[in-house]
């Protein structure tokens, strides 16, 4: 049995790009997402495109029981992994006071809890003959505190620090971890509109999702720890790292207020 690549959140734009890139490289896949129907559709396309073996197991990763069931099924299939790409993540846009408790906790459950749990649970499935590579999808939002996206940005910050620390800790045992920190990716019509709304800045930090997936895999194979795609992204990331958090928060908050005022004027 050949070892494969796990892709979570495979039905989303970035997940699809990772899955297609892996298939194009001839890597067998284990894909998961919530919607079993769309997952089947995806798996069929990947098989046709890459001629690779694709195992699709639907699971809601926010739910511990579902995660357990997922790994049991994977074990029953005799899965071996040499790479795990944790793409699953979400955000509910809007000010803190306008979001419900449930929504806010779901952000933490999916982005933080599910990623930690999946990373831990994947370790016993690693192919002992190969370096085990983990890719966690953090975000450019992880470099600074962000008013209006407080929960999301903090959850991505968690993933960034978690990945860097884990990479150092597990390096000796043949496990490498990379944190991918992309800006907004135009992978569906709603996101294209959101990037449009940011104007020129949005367009300059915007990258083709397929290119990002391919380059991320290259970086991971080369043993990098953090990958911020694009020149604009790298600049923002660098500034986020040297500026005091309170200053970043102030600047980001002001930008949101301006955007908000603009929108209210327009409506």
């Amino acid at each position, binding site marked *: 049995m050949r070892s494969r690549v796990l892709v979570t959140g495979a*039905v989303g*734009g970035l997940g*699809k*790009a990772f*899955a*297609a*890139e892996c*298939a*194009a490289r001839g890597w067998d896949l284990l894909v998961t997402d919530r919607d079993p129907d*769309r997952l089947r*559709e*995806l798996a*069929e*396309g*990947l098989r*046709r*495109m890459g001629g690779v073996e694709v195992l699709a197991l639907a699971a809601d990763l926010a739910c511990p029981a579902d995660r357990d069931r997922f790994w049991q099924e994977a074990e029953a299939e005799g899965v071996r992994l040499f790479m795990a790409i944790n793409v699953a993540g979400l955000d509910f846009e809007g000010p803190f006071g306008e979001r419900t408790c449930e929504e806010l906790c779901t952000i933490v459950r999916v982005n933080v809890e599910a990623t930690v749990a999946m990373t831990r649970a994947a370790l016993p499935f690693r192919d002992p003959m190969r370096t085990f590579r983990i890719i966690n999808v953090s975000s450019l939002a992880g470099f600074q505190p962000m008013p209006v996206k407080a929960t999301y940005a903090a959850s991505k910050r968690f993933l960034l620090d978690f990945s860097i620390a884990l990479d150092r800790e597990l390096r000796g045992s043949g496990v490498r971890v990379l944190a991918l920190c992309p800006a907004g990716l*135009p*992978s*569906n*019509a709603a996101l*294209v509109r959101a*990037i*449009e709304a940011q104007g020129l800045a949005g*367009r300059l930090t*915007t990258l*083709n*999702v*397929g*290119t990002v*997936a*391919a380059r991320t895999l290259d970086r991971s194979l080369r043993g990098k720890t953090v990958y911020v795609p694009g020149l604009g992204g790298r600049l923002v990331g660098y500034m986020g790292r040297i500026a005091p958090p309170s200053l970043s928060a102030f600047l980001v908050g002001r930008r949101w207020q301006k955007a908000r005022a603009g929108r209210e004027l327009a409506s």
Partner: protein
Amino acid sequence: MNAMQENEINDRGDAFRPVAVVTGVGSGIGLAAALGLARAGYALVGVVRNGKRAEETRERILSDVPDARLRLVAGDLGRQREADRICDEILSILQDDCGGRLDRLLYAAGTVTSWYTATEDDYETQFAVNHLAAFRMGLRLREALSASGDGRLLVVSSGSHYQGRMRWHDLMRRRRYHLLAAYMQSKLANVLFVHGFNRRFASDRLRAYAVDPGLVNTDIGAKSTSGLVRRLWDSRRRKGVSPEQGAAEAIRICLAPAAPTGPYDYYKDGHPIRPSAASLRPDAIDRLWTVSERLCGLEGAGTAPDNGKAKRGIEADKGIEARRERPCEAVCS
């Protein structure tokens, strides 16, 4: 509009209404062509993106041609499962209403996307909508077209295919995406498909054509694109001809009393003209055919090109190839 007319595209009263399937009938060239064919007395099966579009399109066509016979099928052609269902629905309509016969298939659906986006099957959107769905429909409706006795398959290609290149190692252009390069490749794929189709199936009862509408003023460049592309397209489309003029060539080929048989299968402004050299390469034609079969899950649907019916356009261009093929044909027959 009585129920009879709405639900049956060919009742017994007028058994000789020819039948056409038109995709992308919601706007642009597809709509203009559908109107032209409806005026000429064709019964139509139109394919539109969604139910809302279907209602608008029905009103639009019936307000122009009140006695039009029209059935509409809604669905996303980019999605393999949907495209397959659309073919099933069309085939069942043809079976119920006109004995499984189809006279014209006009593939006019097309899209442009600014950034790399993937369909539910993880296929690049332009490649899936502009080429793969045309390929699938061509193959799935081929029997019905043959049953017509004078079946014609038309695919709306574009002059931009001359600049098109097939990037075989990354057909979906995932790694380096540029909207124009991806669009031109999909339009080159249209021409390659037409050549492949004719190499395999062309006969005096069935033939495929690629149609070059010229630069046409439609909203194709303003659907899923960024503001910059939309502005560029807005300024460029004004130089284009109207959709009616863009559809004229397709309508002409559909309505021609005898199936046009030029030296090439690529038509513009009433004449067959030479398509790009890349579109005439037999290896590229067969390679795309094989890949498309696999991506559509239609393996074995006319894999071996029938050299006996090899397309004249290709023979004319590849004289040596043709001479090599002929003795082979003699041996085979």
